[in-house]
């Protein structure tokens, strides 16, 4: 089935502010889904709360609009229960690195095959412009009564340190770059993170379209090689990690976009579950029968005695 991009739009009116960076993100996400030919019923967009949270309603694939900060654990449950689904998380910088930061880190430890797209505009848009965890200290965006006194998190370094095996940055208005990056992320067998820089036209008067346009450059054009193939020696991997983290510190006159780190050698979470449950791949939770045809539990009396024999005492 070839997916038509127009069919990936829903009838819900897209209610973001005119000029919002989210339009680029939405458009590019739909394009990537179409180009990868992902079946809408086997694809799930899981979103958090805030402007970015609405994304799941605008794409004509399964959508789960969750709680503030909890998109990652919802998505985790979906993917583990039914690994044949393609799961894409859309969250804001406040959602993923503020209220949901614990989940963001924990996901990296698992290398579960989902893609996390972070809408990064430095502010909490839907609550009218408070500072997000990616806004640098000392900055005073439009709505802030005082300059920000909290330091910014470095999302790329945090993702790498947490164990994400595909870590990239793109820009919401560079549709071509975004689409290619997202396609790579979805195709990557493991946890992928994309930091999407975007302007918030209403509340962030510092990170504007012009601000990004002047500074942004594409990493790969400068001979950057972030890929770790299976069998790579540990020292080489560590070298790539160090370089990627070092690169992530670059912010100012020049802002790199592209893939910072891409490790193909780490076992995905499903493989790890397979070590506990040998038939997990063939029979993940969503594919198991739990009842017999007559409605009785699939675990019969004799299964029960087999499984729990240690707890049954036969009287002498």
């Amino acid at each position, binding site marked *: 089935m070839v997916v038509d991009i127009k069919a990936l739009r*829903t009838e*819900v009116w897209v209610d973001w502010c005119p000029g919002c960076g989210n339009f680029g993100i939405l458009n590019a996400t739909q394009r990537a889904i179409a180009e990868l030919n992902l079946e*809408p*019923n*086997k694809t*799930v967009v*899981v979103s958090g*709360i805030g402007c970015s949270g609405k994304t*799941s*309603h605008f794409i004509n694939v*399964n*959508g*789960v*609009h*969750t*709680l503030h900060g*909890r998109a*990652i*654990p*919802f*998505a985790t*449950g*979906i*993917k*583990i*229960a*039914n690994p044949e*689904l393609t799961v894409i998380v859309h969250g804001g910088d406040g959602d993923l690195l503020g209220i949901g930061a*614990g*989940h963001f880190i*924990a996901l990296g430890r698992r290398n579960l095959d989902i893609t996390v797209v972070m809408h990064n505009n430095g502010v909490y848009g839907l609550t009218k412009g408070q500072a997000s965890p990616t806004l640098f200290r000392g900055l005073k965006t439009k709505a802030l009564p005082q300059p920000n006194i909290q330091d910014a998190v470095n999302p790329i370094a945090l993702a790498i340190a947490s164990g994400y095996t595909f870590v990239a940055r793109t820009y919401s208005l560079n549709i071509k770059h975004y689409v290619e990056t997202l396609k790579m992320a979805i195709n990557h067998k493991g946890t992928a993170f994309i930091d999407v820089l975007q302007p918030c036209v209403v509340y962030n008067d510092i990170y504007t379209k012009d601000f990004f346009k002047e500074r942004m450059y594409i990493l790969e054009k400068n001979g950057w090689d972030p890929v770790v193939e299976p069998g790579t020696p540990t020292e080489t991997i560590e070298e790539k990690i160090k370089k990627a983290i070092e690169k992530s510190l670059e912010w100012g006159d020049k802002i790199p976009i592209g893939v910072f780190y891409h490790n193909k050698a780490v076992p995905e979470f499903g493989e790890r579950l397979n070590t*506990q*449950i040998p038939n*997990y791949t063939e*029979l993940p*939770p*969503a*594919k*198991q*029968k*739990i*009842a017999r045809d007559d*409605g*009785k*539990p*699939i*675990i019969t*009396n004799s*299964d*029960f*005695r087999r*499984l*729990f024999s*240690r*707890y*049954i*005492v*036969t*009287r*002498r």
Partner: protein
Amino acid sequence: MDKELELMIGGPQGSGLDTTGQILTSSLAYIGYGVISDREYYSNITGKHSYIHMKVSPARVPYDLSYPVKLLTAIDAETLFHHYNDIDEKGFIALDERGLDTNLEKIVTIEGFTKQMIMDDLKNRVGSTILRDLVQYLEDDLKINTIILNYKEILDKLVDKYGVAASLASRYMSSIPMGVISGLMDIDAEAIEYGVRRRFHGRERIIEHNVFLITTIAEDIKSVYGSPLKLPKPTLDMKEIMVVSGNDIVAMGKVVGGLRFQSYYPITPAADESFFIEANQNLGDDKGGVVVFQTEDELAAIAAAIGGALTGVRTATATSGPGFSLMVEALGWAGNSEVPLVITYYQRGGPATGLPTRGGQSDLLFTMFASHGEFPRVVLASGDHEEAFEDSIIAFNLAEKYQLPVIHLLDKYLANSIATIRVPDIDQFTIDRGIIYNGNGDYVRFDTSKTISPRAFLGDDVIMWHTGNEHNEEGHNTEDPILRERMYRKRMEKLELIIKETPKKYMYRYYGPENPEVILLGWGFVKHVSISAIKHLEKEGYKAGYLHLKMFMPFPEEDIVNILNKVDRNNIIAVENNIMLQAAKATSLFTGIRIDRGIKKYTGRPIYLHELLEALRDLLNNRNKKEVVLTYGS
């Protein structure tokens, strides 16, 4: 019930009491006795005082614990200081000779307040805080038989016979109480070996050492004391007996009930359940396995379970009070988005961290109303191990049939006590998955034409949306007032359906005469102590019944009104492990029947039969008295 035996084994955490309890319970079950074994312990891994309190019956599966006990075996000197008031006249205590000169004042593992209380009592009654003097007092004044053994000499026998390193011999300490009990109860060598084998399956050397030690001690004890605590031959009509804790049996019920994904964050006293499931997760080549997923916190645990449920999997999480507090926001999401989900909730002593390893029933009202906004949920409470098994299956059926979260309430008493129960017959249970989309026609997830919309799963041939916002039939956000009212009502109407369609035995049970004069009202683990109490009251001339509430949300109002109307309002007495009498409050809320007399215990220890009876007599004889607060147990 006269020919039953209650006993205690006490010692520091980490000294193998659990092992003793498991071996003893298996041996007794093997002979055919019914056993309940409650474990009381501090939030501590090694050093602080813990004990096992056990009742053994030849004729029934007991659940009601009571004091005094006939036998106390102590691993350390501290134990007797905690329990010298718990022993029956002419009962038995077994002690280590080496601890006799211990002065209570010098024991560092007893906290200050507790120590002072005991010291005051000892100074008053014994005139000394030295163990030897206390023992003398118990022998002289209470005619208690003291069995003084030298534990080191006993363990040295292992060193001599098997060449076990002296430093390792202390690991066999748990055999000493088992040996003493086996002697006094006349548990034979075959039964002892059976219990030891079950505990250490396959580890032949350890089995041999333990059996040797236990049987040797038992023979020595018998030669001096005989077997004065021997029970009559068992008459229990069970060929096979399950020996399970509450955590174990709930885990089994969930697996039978179709659980295939459990997410959890470690917390006492719930975590053992998840460990149990993981240890038994492979169900067979053709059946698959249960994923047990340890999350980073309880926020993630419930969120992952919801996510899994959206794919059509029976999912659950297991937690206790502090964990559930964190899950509350997501609970509302599940209610709003009509997600079937089971939360197995083991209550412990609150608030905050409270009494992490002690019991309580103080979270009922919290579970009934947790999370903002109004949404339907089921709150279902179990009163014993058999109910817990059944309810674990029923919880999933209710969750899927009505597409809502089900909170299955248990308590620490049930979770950590080991009972001997009948092996359940799986064929009496049905898996009811509710209305599922049949694959024809256009699909909308929240079809408002019926109260229960057909459910499709993520990954099916259709697509759908879920949201925490109010939503339209597709699952997209809406703020339309008409749609809002329709969706809101559709969700809440499920509660009426549940009351109409659910068999009464899952909502409440009534025990006692058809026309009682007095009704005890309780829930959870107070069930059996209350049932025993009404039997005693009957002998004393009171026609008393026990109303055991199980389902609190929705609440079976009409039936409960009919039962409670049988007695004078002043003759309704609530029995609960909380201060507010929460089940009574809930009953009042839904039935309009005000219940303000009750027996309360919130010390973290279970309600014991002897104190309950005393309190009931007090309330029955003093009609103006409103409440009795129970505090027995260390």
